[in-house]
C-alpha cells in the first residue's frame, strides 16, 4: 500500500480537498462579496471535472473495500459533468436566494459531500463501504431538500426524505445482515463464491433491493419522490432525479450483475414485475400533473422503469445500454429541469399552464425544453431515442418481447404528457404569457451544454462503443 495507490482515489481526494478549501475560503472571503464563493466553487469543480478525465488504472484498496476500474471511473465522470451542469444552472438561484444569508458554502459543502458519498458507493468493494457511501450520499441531500428554511414545503420534503431514507436504509441493512448470515462475509468478492439461492438469501436480496429501489424510486418504493421534488429547491430536485438516481442505478446494476449473479433467476423476475409496475404507475401519475416539478418527478420514475429493461439483460449489453441511457438521461433531464429553474427563478411560476404561449415570448427556452422532452420521450434524432431503443434491444435480446411491448405502450403514454407541455408552449397563445427575459451567463452555459449533449450523444456512435469496451468484464 504505497502513496501513489492513493491516486486511485483521485476523485474522492480532490473533491474532499475542494470541500475543505471552500470551508477555508468561507472564512477569508469578506462579507460584501460573498457571491464570489459561487464562482470559486464552480471554478474548482470545473477543474475537478476536467482532472477526472485523466486515465486511472484498475485496482482496489483497503483489502478490496474500495475498488475502481474504467467503467466506475467513467461513471464518476458522468456524475461530475452532471453536477457541474447543475451548479451552472443553479448559480443564479444561489446568488439571489442563498448567498444573502451566508449559506452559499453550506450548499456546496453538502452537495459535494453527497457526491463524495456516491463516489464511495459506486466504487465500494464491500457492503460496509457501500452502506457508508449510501448514507453519506443521502443525508446531505435531505439537508439540502430542507434548505429553503423559510419555506414550509421545503422542510416537509426534507422530513419526508430523511424519514423514508432512514426506513429504506434500515430495511436494506437488515437485508445485508441476512446476506451476511448466509455467506459469512461482507466482501463482494467472497460473497460471489458462496452465495446460493436459499430462502434466507432471497429474503436478504429482496430487502437489500428495496433499499436501493428506494433511491432509484421504483414502484412501490417511489412515493417520496414526487413530494420531495415538489418541496425541495429545483436544483435539489434535479440533483435527486439525475445524479443520485444515476449513481444508485449504477451500483444496483453492478451488485446484481456481479455479487448477486447467482440469484439472477430470482431477481430478473423481480425486475420484470417492478419494471412493468414502475412504468405504468409513473406514467399514469405523470398524466395529470400540473406542477412541472411533480411532472418531471413522475416522468423520471417512469424513466427508471425503462432503465430496468436494460438491467434485466444481466450482461455486458445490459451494462452498456444502461450506462449509455443514464448518460443521455442526465443531459435530457438536466435540460428540462434547467428550463424549469430558469423560468421559476425569473417569474416564480412552476405550473404547466403558466407556460402557455412561451414560444412566442421565449423561443430559445422553449426549444431547449422541446428538445429535452423529445429526448425523454425518445423521439429521433435526439439522443433519448437511441438510449431507449438500445434498452429495448437489451430486453428483447433475452426474449422479453412482452415486456418490450408494454414498454413501448408506455412510451406512447409518456409521449402524450410530454406533448402536453409542448402544446402549452407552442400551440397555445396566451395574453398573460411569461414575458421575454434573458438568462445569465451560467444558466445559458448550463443549458447549452445539455443541448449539445442531447443533440450529439445519440448520433455519435463511438461513445457507445467506448462504453461497451469499458463494460467488457461483465460477461
Amino acid at each position: 500500500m504505497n502513496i501513489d495507490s492513493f491516486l486511485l482515489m483521485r476523485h474522492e481526494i480532490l473533491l474532499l480537498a475542494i470541500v475543505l478549501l471552500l470551508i477555508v475560503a468561507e472564512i477569508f472571503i469578506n462579507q460584501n462579496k460573498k457571491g464570489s464563493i459561487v464562482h470559486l466553487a464552480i471554478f474548482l469543480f470545473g477543474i475537478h471535472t476536467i482532472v477526472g478525465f485523466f486515465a486511472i488504472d484498475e485496482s482496489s484498496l483497503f483489502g478490496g473495500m474500495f475498488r475502481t476500474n474504467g467503467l466506475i471511473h467513467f461513471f464518476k465522470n458522468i456524475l461530475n459533468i452532471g453536477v457541474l451542469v447543475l451548479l451552472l444552472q443553479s448559480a443564479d438561484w444561489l446568488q439571489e436566494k442563498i448567498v444573502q444569508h451566508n449559506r452559499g458554502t453550506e450548499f456546496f459543502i453538502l452537495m459535494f459531500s453527497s457526491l463524495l458519498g456516491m463516489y464511495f458507493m459506486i466504487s465500494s468493494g464491500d457492503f460496509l463501504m457501500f452502506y457508508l457511501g449510501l448514507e453519506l450520499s443521502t443525508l446531505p441531500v435531505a439537508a439540502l431538500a430542507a434548505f429553503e428554511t423559510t419555506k414550509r414545503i421545503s422542510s416537509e420534503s426534507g422530513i419526508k426524505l430523511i424519514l423514508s431514507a432512514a426506513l429504506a436504509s434500515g430495511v436494506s441493512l437488515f437485508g445485508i445482515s441476512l446476506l451476511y448470515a448466509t455467506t459469512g462475509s461482507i466482501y463482494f468478492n467472497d460473497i460471489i463464491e458462496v452465495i446460493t439461492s436459499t430462502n434466507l438469501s432471497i429474503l436478504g436480496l429482496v430487502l437489500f433491493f428495496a433499499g436501493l429501489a428506494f433511491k432509484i424510486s421504483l414502484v412501490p418504493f417511489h412515493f417520496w419522490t414526487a413530494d420531495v421534488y415538489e418541496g425541495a429547491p429545483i436544483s435539489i430536485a434535479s440533483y435527486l432525479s439525475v445524479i443520485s438516481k444515476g449513481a444508485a442505478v449504477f451500483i444496483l446494476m453492478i451488485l446484481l450483475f456481479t455479487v448477486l449473479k447467482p440469484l439472477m433467476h430470482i431477481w430478473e423476475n423481480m425486475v420484470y414485475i417492478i419494471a412493468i409496475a414502475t412504468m405504468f404507475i409513473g406514467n399514469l401519475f405523470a398524466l395529470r400533473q400540473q406542477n412541472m416539478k411533480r411532472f418531471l418527478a413522475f416522468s423520471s420514475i417512469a424513466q427508471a422503469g425503462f432503465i430496468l429493461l436494460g438491467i434485466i439483460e444481466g450482461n455486458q449489453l445490459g451494462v452498456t445500454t444502461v450506462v449509455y441511457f443514464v448518460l443521455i438521461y442526465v443531459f435530457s433531464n438536466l435540460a428540462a429541469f434547467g428550463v424549469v429553474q430558469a423560468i421559476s427563478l425569473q417569474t416564480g411560476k412552476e405550473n404547466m399552464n403558466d407556460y402557455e404561449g412561451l414560444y412566442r415570448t421565449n423561443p430559445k427556452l422553449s426549444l431547449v425544453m422541446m428538445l429535452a422532452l423529445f429526448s425523454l420521450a425518445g423521439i429521433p434524432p435526439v439522443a433519448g431515442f437511441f438510449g431507449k431503443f438500445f434498452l429495448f434491444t437489451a430486453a428483447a435480446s433475452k426474449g422479453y418481447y412482452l415486456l418490450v411491448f408494454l414498454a413501448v405502450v408506455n412510451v406512447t403514454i409518456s409521449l402524450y404528457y410530454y406533448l402536453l407541455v409542448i402544446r402549452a408552449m407552442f400551440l397555445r397563445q396566451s395574453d398573460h404569457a411569461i414575458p421575454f427575459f434573458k438568462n445569465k451567463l451560467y444558466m445559458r452555459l448550463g443549458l447549452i451544454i445539455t443541448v449539445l449533449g442531447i443533440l450529439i450523444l445519440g448520433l455519435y456512435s463511438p461513445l457507445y462503443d467506448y462504453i461497451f469496451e469499458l463494460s467488457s468484464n461483465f460477461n
Partner: protein
Amino acid sequence: MDILSLFIIVPVITILVLIFAKGLKQSRIISLVGSIFQFGMAINLVFAYFKERAVNDAIMVFTKDVVWFKQFNIHYSIGVDGISVALLLLTTIVVLAGVFISWKMKDLPKEFFVSLIVLSIGVYGFFISIDLFTMFVFFEIAVIPMYLLIGIWGTGPREYSAMKLTLMLMGASAVLLVGILGIYFNSNADGGPLTFNILEIAQVNIPFEVQKLFFPLTFIGFAVIGALFPFHTWSPDGHASAPTAVSMLHAGVLMKLGGYGVFRVAMYLLPEGALHWSWFFIILAAIGVVYGAFAALKQTDLKYINAYSSVSHLGLVLFALLMLNKTAWNGAILQSLSHGFMTALFFALIGMIYGRTHTRDVTKLGGLLKVIPFISVIYVIAGLASLGLPGFSGFVAEMNIFVGAFQHDDIFYRVLTILSVSAIVITAVYILRVVGIMLMGPVKNEAFLSLPKVTWYEKFGILLLLIPIVGMGVAPLWLSNMILESLQPFIQGVL
C-alpha cells in the same frame, strides 16, 4: 457526396439557412430554392437510375453503407430501386407544390417551413434506407413534425386532431418497433450475425413460428399510417384540421410510408407470415376499400370526403400488396404514386377554395365553375382522375390492382376482388355528388360572385401535380416497367 445522401443533406442545409431567415419573404424563397433543388435532384436521379440499371442488376443501386453502431451491427445503409426512385420523385414534387401552396403562410412562416422540411427529410430517408434501424428512425422523424404542423397552423379542433394523430401513429410505430426487434433477433437463424440490413435478412429464412408472431406487428405498425381499416380514424380528423400544405404532404406522401413499409419490410422479410395472415388482413383491407367509399358518400366537409376516399384508395394499396403477386404489387405502387399526386392536388384545391370562400361545407358552396373557373375545372379533372377515368393515373393503377388480384387462384380472393372493384362505382357517386353540388348549379352565395382569381403560385402548384397524373395515365409503360423489374427480386424472395 453520393447522390442519395444529398436527399438528406440538402434539406438539412436548407433548414440551417432558414434558421437565419427573417420573415415570410426570405423563408419562402429559401425553402422554394431548396425544394426546387431537390426536385432537380430527383429528376437527375431518375435518369441516373436508368443509366445505372442498364449496367447494374443489383436489387438496390447507388448503395452506400457506413457502419453506425457496430455492436448492434447498425449501419447507415442506403440504396434505391425503381420503386423508391418513383416515390422519391413523388415526394419532391409534392413538397415543391406544398411550398408553392403555402406561399402566403402568415403565422410563424419560418417555423412552418422548417417543420415541413423536417418532415420531408424523414420521408426521403425512409425511402432510401435499406437498414431497418435507419428506416425506423426516419419513420419517426417524419411523423413527429405533424404534431406541430397541425397543432400550430391548423384549423378547427387542431389540438385534438394533432394529439390524436401523433399518438395513434406513434403507438403504431411502437408496435412496429417490437416487430423490428423480433426480426432483428431472428436474423441469425442461418447462423449469420444479427443484422438490420433488409437485403441480408431477406436471404435468411426465418422460422415460421417467428414469422407468424411478428408479421402482424410489423404489418399493423406500418399499415396504421396507411390507414388500415379499424385504425384509420386519425386520418380524417388530422386532414380536416391540418393546413393545406400539410394535408398535401400528409396524404400525398406520409401515408405512402405505410404501403412502402409493408411491402419492404413485412412482406419481404416475413413472406411466410404474410401468406399465413394475408386472408385476415385482406378482409380488413377490402372492408376499408368499400367502407371508406361509403363513409365518404355521407360527408359534407370537403376534407373529410377526401380523407375517406384516401382510406378507400389506400385500402386498395394494402389489398393489392396482400395479394402477393407481381401485377397487383405493381398496381399497389402505381396506386401509391397516383393517389399521392391526386390527393395532394385535391387538398391543394380544397385549400384554395377554402381560402376564398372560408367554408369547406359542400352544401354551402355552389356554382363555383362560374366564379373560379380554373380551380373548378382542375377540380373536375382531379375528380375524374380519382374515380379512375382512363387517361389518368388512377385508372392505370386500379386496373393493375384488379387484374393482378384477380389472377389469384383462390376463389375467396377473387370474390373479395370483385367486392372491392364495386367500390369504383361508389367512388364515382361521391365524386360526382361533390362536383354537382359544389361546382355546378347556380351560384349559391352572392359573396362568391367576387372571389379573387387564381394566382401564379397556385397555378404552379396545381400544374406541378396535374402533369404527372396525366403523364402516368397516358403513358404508363415506362414507369410500370421500371417498377416491375424492381419487383422481380421481391417476387423471388416472397414466392
